C-alpha cells in the first residue's frame, strides 16, 4: 500500500506493525515523534506494548536491556545526546548479546548544542558492538527497521541493531512510500523465542557477571565473531525481505559504478543529492558513480574494496568530524579497506554537513571536479578537508 509518511512516522508505523513487548520512551529532538506516535497506538489499543516512560535515555536503554534479557522484544528511539547518554549501556546490551532494536535519528552532538543532522552521534557509538544500518530516505528507514529483528535475533548473531536516518531531512520530511501489510510484517518478523531468558520457568538465568581476565577475552572474541557473522545474515534477511517487498538491499548501494572512474562514498540522505549530481555529470560524459554505505557495522571492507577497485579517484564524504586530525570515521574505514588492493584509487576525505549544514548538487559537482583533477595529476593534497563552512572573510 502506498502512503505519505515522515521518516519518524514510518518507523513508528513499523513499531506498530511489529507490536513489540516493551518500549523505552524518552523525548529528544528529532526522534521525539517516534515515541509520541507509539503512545497514541498504545492509547488507542492498537498495540499492547508495555510502554515505559523513563526519566532519561540512560534508563531507556537500561529498561530495554533488562526487558530483552527477561525474554521480551524491546525497542527504543533516540538522537544525539540521548545516544551519548546511553553510551555505557550500548556496550552492555551488545556484550549481553541482547538483540534490542534502536531507531537512531541522527543529530549533531553538543557542543555547541545543535538539533540538526549529522552522524556524530551514531559514529561515536560505532565501536559499541551494535549493528548499524543507515537509511537514505523514509522507505529505507521503514524497511531497515523491519529487517533489524530478523538480523539481530538470529542465534549466530544475537546483537543489538541500530537503524539510523538523518534528523529532519529524513525524519520530518514527508515522502511517498510503500508500506507492507501488517500480516506480512508479523510473518516476516516471527515470534521472539530466545533460548534462555530471566523469566523462563524451567531454567533461571544470571545475566551480567563480573568477568575476570580468565574469561573476558573469550567473551569479546565471541562478540567479534557474531559481528562477522552478521554480514551474511544481513544479506540473507535482505533476500527474504525482497520476496515480500520487491525492494532489494545490500551492504551498500552502488549507483552508476559499473564503469565509474570517479566515485563518492557516503552515508545517508546526501546520497539523493549525490545521485542527482551524478545524473547531470553522466549527461556530460563524466564517468561518475556513488557507493552509499548502508551497513556501517559490520563494515563491508572487502566488498567495498571490490566496488572501488576499478575507479581512479574516490572522495569519502564524512558527515561527522572524528577529531582524529586524520580524517573522519568513514574515511578511516574506507582507506583501510582499500589497502589490500594491488592497484588503489587516489583517495581523499571531505567532512561536510555538520550540524545540518546543507549540501547541494553543486557542492557534489565540485567534489567530482576535484576528483577529475586528481585522476589526471595524482595530486591528493590536502587529503582531508572540510566543505561548506564559510571563510573568515565571508563571516565578516
Amino acid at each position, binding site marked *: 500500500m502506498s502512503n505519505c509518511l515522515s521518516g519518524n512516522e514510518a518507523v513508528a508505523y513499523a513499531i506498530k506493525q511489529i507490536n513489540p*513487548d516493551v518500549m523505552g520512551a524518552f523525548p529528544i529532538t528529532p526522534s521525539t515523534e517516534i515515541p509520541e506516535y507509539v503512545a497514541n497506538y498504545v492509547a488507542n489499543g492498537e498495540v499492547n*506494548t508495555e510502554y515505559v516512560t523513563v526519566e*532519561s535515555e540512560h534508563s531507556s536503554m537500561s529498561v530495554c536491556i533488562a526487558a530483552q534479557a527477561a525474554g*521480551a522484544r524491546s525497542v527504543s528511539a533516540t538522537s544525539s545526546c540521548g545516544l551519548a547518554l546511553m553510551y555505557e549501556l550500548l556496550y552492555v546490551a551488545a556484550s549481553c548479546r541482547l538483540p534490542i532494536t534502536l531507531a537512531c535519528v541522527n543529530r549533531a552532538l553538543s557542543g555547541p548544542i545543535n538539533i540538526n543532522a549529522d552522524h556524530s552521534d551514531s559514529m561515536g557509538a560505532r565501536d559499541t558492538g551494535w549493528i548499524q544500518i543507515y537509511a537514505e530516505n523514509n522507505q529505507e528507514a521503514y524497511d531497515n527497521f523491519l529487517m533489524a529483528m530478523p538480523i539481530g535475533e538470529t542465534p549466530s548473531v544475537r546483537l543489538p541493531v541500530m537503524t539510523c536516518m538523518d534528523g529532519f531531512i529524513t525524519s520530518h520530511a514527508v515522502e511517498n512510500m510503500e508500506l507492507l501489510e501488517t500480516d506480512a510484517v508479523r510473518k516476516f518478523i516471527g515470534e521472539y523465542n530466545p533460548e534462555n531468558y530471566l523469566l523462563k520457568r524451567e531454567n533461571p538465568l544470571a545475566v*551480567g*557477571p563480573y568477568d575476570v581476565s580468565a574469561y573476558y577475552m573469550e567473551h569479546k572474541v565471541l562478540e567479534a565473531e557474531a559481528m562477522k557473522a552478521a554480514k551474511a545474515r544481513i544479506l540473507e534477511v535482505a533476500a527474504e525481505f525482497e520476496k515480500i517487498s520487491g525492494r532489494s538491499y545490500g551492504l551498500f548501494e552502488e549507483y552508476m559504478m559499473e564503469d565509474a572512474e570517479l566515485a563518492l562514498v557516503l552515508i545517508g540522505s546526501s546520497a539523493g543529492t549525490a545521485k542527482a549530481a551524478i545524473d547531470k555529470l553522466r549527461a556530460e560524459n563524466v564517468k561518475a558513480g556513488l557507493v552509499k554505505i548502508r551497513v556501517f557495522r559490520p563494515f563491508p571492507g572487502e566488498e567495498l574494496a571490490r566496488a572501488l577497485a576499478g575507479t581512479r579517484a574516490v572522495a569519502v564524504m564524512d558527515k561527522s568530524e572524528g577529531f582524529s586530525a586524520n580524517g573522519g570515521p568513514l574515511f578511516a574505514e574506507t582507506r583501510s579497506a582499500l589497502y589490500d588492493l594491488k592497484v588503489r584509487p587516489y583517495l581523499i576525505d571531505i567532512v561536510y554537513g555538520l550540524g545540518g549544514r546543507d549540501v547541494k548538487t553543486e557542492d557534489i559537482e565540485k567534489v567530482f571536479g576535484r576528483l577529475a583533477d586528481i585522476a589526471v595529476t595524482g595530486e591528493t593534497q590536502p587529503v582531508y578537508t572540510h566543505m561548506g563552512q564559510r571563510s573568515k572573510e565571508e563571516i565578516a
Partner: protein
Amino acid sequence: MSTVYNLKREVEKPARLTGGHRLCAGCGAGVIVSGVLRALNKEDRAVVVNATSCLEVSTFMYPYTAYMDSYIHSAFENSAATCSGVEAAYNALKRRGKVEETVKFITFAGDGGTYDIGFQSLSGAMERGHDMVYVCYDNEAYMNTGIQRSSSTPRFARTTTTPIGSVGQGKKQNKKDLVEILVAHNIPYVAQTAPIGNFKDLHTKSYKAIYTEGPCFLNVLSPCPRGWDYPMAKLSEITKLAMDTCVWPLYEVEEGVWHLSYTPKKKLPVEDFLRPQGRFKHMFQKGNEWMIEDAQAYVNQKWERLLEHTGA
C-alpha cells in the same frame, strides 16, 4: 506468611543466596540479601537485580552465581531502571500468555549506587510505580572501590577521600536523609531496617515490601568491617549499637503513615557507637570533643524529628 515469626522455620527454607560467595567475613550485605530473599513465599520466583557493587562482584563472578533465582546486573547507576525493565517484560509477557506464575522483582544496591549515582534511576522507577522492591544496603561509603565517601557517609567519618590530616577532619557534611526523600515519592511502603537480633524486623519489612503492590523501598544498615574499621566478629554488636544510640532508628512508612519499630530501653550516647570504629577514631583525640557533641546534637535532632513523624 504465618503471623508469628519463627527464625528456625525461616532458615529451614532452601537458601536463595547460597554459600561460597566471595563477600568478606563480617560483611552485612550477604546477611541482608539472605534475610530479604527468605521473606519470599517458597512457591514464588524472583528476579534479583543488582547494581555494580561489592555484592555484585562477590556473588556473580563468571561462571558462578550464588543466586538460585534469575539475576541481572547491568551497570552501577541503573539498577532501578533495570528492575523496571524486567517488570515491564513480565507485564508484557503475562498479558500475552507467555508467563503464568507469580514473579517478584527485588533490587539490591549499595549506598553509592542508591544515594548518589543511581539516584535519578531510583527516583524515576519509584515515580512510575513499578511493582518492585528496592533494597539499599547502606554501608555508608563506596566500599567496592576502597572506601570513598558517598552522600550517605556520616559527618566526621574517615574515608579515603575524606582523610584525616592537619586540616582535614573527615567528612564535612551530614548524611543525606534518603528515606525521607523516598517517602516524598508517595510510594506505598518505605522502611528503614537492619540485620539485627533474630532478623524479625528485616524479615517483616521485607515481606511487606515484597507483597505490597507497587514500588517499595528498604534502607538497610550494612556494617562493613573494612570501611568502618572494626573486628569482623562484631557485626551484630555494631548493628545493635546503631539502634540503641538512635543513629540508625528502625521505622516504616506505610501509605504515608509513620510507625516507629524500635525504641531503645535506654538511649545510649552516640560515642558508644563511634568508639569501636576506626573511621571515627580521630573524634576521640583531645581537642576534638566538639565533634562528638556535634554528632550527638545531630542524632538528637533527627531522632526528635522522627518521633514527631511517628507520634511516638
